[in-house]
């Protein structure tokens, strides 16, 4: 029985989630860079 708010594969899942969060951040920052590149 796992603790409330915890799951068995959580540690590995947290690492993957952090990577996906980073990917989202790249898209957010990337769109500013794209617009800046288009209109220097």
């Amino acid at each position, binding site marked *: *029985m*796992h603790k*409330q*708010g*915890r*799951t*068995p*594969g*959580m540690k*590995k*899942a*947290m690492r*993957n*989630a952090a990577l*996906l*969060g980073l*990917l*989202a*951040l790249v*898209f*957010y*920052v*990337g*769109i*500013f860079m*794209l*617009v800046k590149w*288009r*209109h220097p």
Partner: protein
Amino acid sequence: MSAATLDHDTHGEHHPSGIWRWVTTTNHKDIGTLYLLFSLLMFFIGGSFAMVIRAELFKPGMQLVDPVMFNQLTTMHALIMIFGAIMPAFVGLANWMIPIMIGAPDMALPRMNNWSFWILPFAFTLLLGTLLMPGGGPAGGWTMYPPLMLQTGTAFPFVIFAVHMMGISSVMGAINIVVTILNLRAPKMTLLKMPLFVWTWFITAYLLIAVMPVLAGAVTMLLTDKYFGTSFFSAAGGGDPVMFQHIFWFFGHPEVYIMILPAFGIVSEIIPTFARKPLFGYESMVYAVASIAFLSFIVWAHHMFTVGMPLAGELFFMFTTMLIAVPTGVKVFNWTATLWKGSITFETPMLFALAFLFLFTIGGFSGVMCAIVPADFQYQDSYFVVAHFHYVLVTGAAFAIMGAVYYWLPKWTGHMYNETVAKWHFWMSTIWVNVLFFPQHFLGLAGMPRRIPDYPVQFTDLNMLSSIGGFLFGASQLIFLYVVISTIRGGPKAPAKPWEGAKGLEWHLPSPPSYHSWTTPPDAEVWTHPYRD
């Protein structure tokens, strides 16, 4: 093993009670319920805006609201229905069903799951609150094009903040879904053995992670253009307002698929169950969804043909858009082939799935018509487009959600819903939704523009017909509310597997499942591949 119930998890029933259960919950079933109830509330709020819109358009001349209020209502109707009703409904279904379909004890990151949900009520209270601010709420359309959107009054920064909160909620929800599927599947459940609802959500979640930050970036730039002296989209300062449209639709087109891919997954669950046959072409369904998701990134400028772009650009976006019809056609073919020679019964979930098959396809066909550049010059910004995307989003996404609710309601509540009343809901919805939206094709072809509160007299008859359909479709949804509430409150006891032809792990749990299910992962022998005999 057959559909024997595996109720070995009753020792984990303890949970807080009262309001704190819901505020502090990390349980995927509770959070799924919260998402679904929230989306139902938003469905009725967004729907009430639509009723006012249709009442205003019942006859020519100004009747109920002034033009500024009308524009606020169309903008809010779209924002509420897209971000408040359809998307949270799918996330709610994902929360409830994905863990129990893949044999996981919960979502992988339960605390983040709680946070993902509880951002939403604040975001939408803020958004709806802008209607009461000086100058009113946003009135520039859900697309928020500058410079029009920059004319919004005091409400502007609040709308931008609300959109950011919705984005953060969606991205966190999507990340949770991806890692749950990647890390918590039952032993021996390889990716190509997952149920299709899980597959479609897996791909949708990646779309969300890729495009919600793009929307957030675009609206952040709008904010800095208005308040911090930048000119990302201001021609006067060397910026380009058309650039906003490109960025918006780079988000906006995948967003359309975010709202339809999980619906494909739902239909792929329901049709095999009630046709009592395995889904035809499981792998090709998965590849079709992946192809649609990929193509959704390279079609965005078909929303902007009349804005002006090089001929090569128009041709590129026309052909890539038409290409989407190929994997979509594969899916429609496979659903039809699944029905072929099946032992079909017509319970309410199946009726909604079949209506989806016919009516979504109508929306798909009018989509291909809009993809043709010279024809689109005629359709652009007309009621034809309004008819097109409402066929996709109402008879597509919303019908699939209603089908899913009827399909899994016995599992969630432990009670069977009233089949007779549910069928009334289906037939009333299906008849009136067509009376509502089908005439809008003709209005658009005759030249009626969208987003207007008044129109020339020659459009009166079809607008009256459309409004009558709208009022009755709206009223029909009260039947849905009645069925859902009465099923939650009681009804005949539902067995673990209420549908004879259903396959998959969720039907191995009792109805309703215990608070913590699959605390020990199911053995591979327990579940059969849902799509093969």
